[in-house]
């Protein structure tokens, strides 16, 4: 296995980008990543694209070919592959790129993620996101994605005494971080009272417990160690990139307050990287809903099951805490551009490990990202190091 490094990163702004189309957004992220890596573009041997639902958001399939075309890679006949795992699509693209380089098949590849969601209305968006859970047996009864996370949240409240205020504090923290991120969608701080006064989406989850759905794209250039050393003084190594599955519908899981795919993927990632949760300095998790961040604390092994809320209550996951989580603002404040999110998380960890995260910089030599599809049927865990 080749050692694998990130040598370039790019991210479009995230948000409601009414005046920008899909092609335009993807291109801005891709060009930024290629420039950041100091490449011309022709060195790239393959492309992997994470996109959840071009078919329904844009009436456009064959997204990988479209992106290859508009990024100039079709002129060079570079193979381009779309991968899909709901909102873990970006994580899957990152992992495919990692595997392609680790295996020795390719020297330099690009992993991108992109979604354009604002060309359809919000009710359609709710329906599309519900298709990341079990459309026939959950979506059919009106169980939207927030509704399913609400079922998880209430179970966590009952079993472990987690409170709506704990969830609100996750949102408040992520907004505080996002306010420092020039590419975040919501660059403003909020208070616990703001969350608690926002309307219910699916009780007990309120509007400010839910990440927005955003337009956006992100890209990373991945190379083997030999090439990375030639091209950059600041490679960020990927020492593990693991993936696991769980039952699609909540009703088939033994315990809906545990994301078994996250537990399995992270156990394997720590083993592969020869690390423990204690060795991780900075983390990006998939806070599509605030309860998901609490679950992530537990299922990634940072705290025992049921004690997730203590990390937010004690400030441990704040920017100045022992284990900063979602320095970018997370999905809640930075924005959730569905298929782009897994790549966007890798971009943030790269900024942090290079020491280029600006006002939100933390002291870190190792990082971890967690990208989840739907209610956790797909999970991708990546560990990053600068050594």
């Amino acid at each position: 296995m080749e050692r694998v490094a990130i040598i370039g990163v790019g991210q479009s702004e995230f948000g409601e980008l009414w005046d920008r189309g899909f092609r335009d957004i993807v291109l801005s992220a891709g060009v930024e990543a290629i420039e950041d890596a100091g490449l011309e573009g022709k060195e790239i041997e393959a492309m992997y694209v994470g996109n959840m639902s071009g078919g329904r958001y844009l009436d456009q399939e064959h997204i990988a070919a479209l992106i290859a075309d508009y990024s100039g890679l079709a002129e060079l006949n570079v193979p381009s592959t779309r991968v899909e795992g709901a909102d873990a699509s970006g994580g899957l693209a990152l992992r495919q790129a990692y595997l392609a380089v680790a295996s020795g098949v390719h020297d330099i590849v690009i992993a991108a993620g992109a979604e354009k969601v604002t060309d359809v209305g919000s009710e359609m968006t709710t329906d599309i996101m519900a298709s990341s859970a079990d459309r026939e047996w959950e979506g059919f009864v009106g169980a939207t994605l927030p509704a399913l996370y609400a079922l998880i949240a209430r179970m966590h409240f009952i079993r472990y005494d987690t409170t709506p205020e704990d969830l609100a504090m996750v949102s408040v923290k992520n907004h505080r971080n996002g306010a420092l991120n020039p590419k975040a969608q919501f660059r403003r701080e909020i208070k616990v009272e703001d969350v608690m006064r926002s309307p219910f989406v699916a009780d007990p989850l309120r509007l400010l417990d839910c990440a927005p759905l955003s337009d956006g794209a992100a890209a990373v250039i991945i190379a083997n160690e030999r090439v990375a050393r030639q091209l950059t003084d600041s490679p960020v190594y990927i020492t593990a990139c693991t993936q696991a599955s769980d039952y699609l519908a909540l009703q088939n899981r033994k315990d809906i307050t545990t994301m078994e795919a996250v537990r399995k993927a992270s156990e394997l990632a720590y083993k592969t990287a020869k690390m423990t949760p204690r060795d991780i300095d900075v983390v990006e998790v998939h806070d599509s809903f605030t309860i998901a961040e609490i679950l992530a604390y537990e299922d990634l092994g940072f705290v025992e099951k049921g004690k997730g809320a203590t990390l937010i209550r004690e400030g441990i996951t704040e920017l100045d805490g022992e284990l900063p989580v979602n320095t970018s603002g997370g999905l809640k404040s930075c924005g959730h551009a569905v298929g782009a999110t897994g790549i966007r998380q890798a971009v943030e960890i790269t900024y942090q490990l290079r020491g280029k995260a600006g006002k939100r910089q933390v002291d870190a030599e190792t990082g971890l990202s967690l990208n989840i599809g739907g209610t956790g049927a797909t999970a991708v865990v990546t560990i990053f190091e600068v050594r």
Partner: protein
Amino acid sequence: MLPRFWRKIKYRYDIVGSECESCGSKFYPPRNLCPVCRRRSRIKEIDFGERGTVVSYTVVYDSPDEFKLQKPYVVALIKLDDGPLITSQVVCDPDRVEVGMRVVKAFRKYFEEGDAGIIYYGTKFVPE
């Protein structure tokens, strides 16, 4: 939606799922393969009866188009007395639903495809 719906009418109108005779695992919705035994699965159909207990619930305020006239509505995870969990709607005042509430199966309309379209029926639950 129609063909994939009517194929499963038997399982939607009644709570019919699967049991693996090799290991005793029970599944709703039905499966053709037991994920525990896989190749050694011995699947048979089983009716999980009509009663259960709410183990978690939510009141949905933001819904796709076809549910908008029902808002706010209750979606619950229900432990069936004779079987596994099922995700379904509970038809009651949203203020009344609580964890531990006893519920019983009821045949109800779910939604329709526009004004002149197909009407989809299925199982919901009502307080016992």
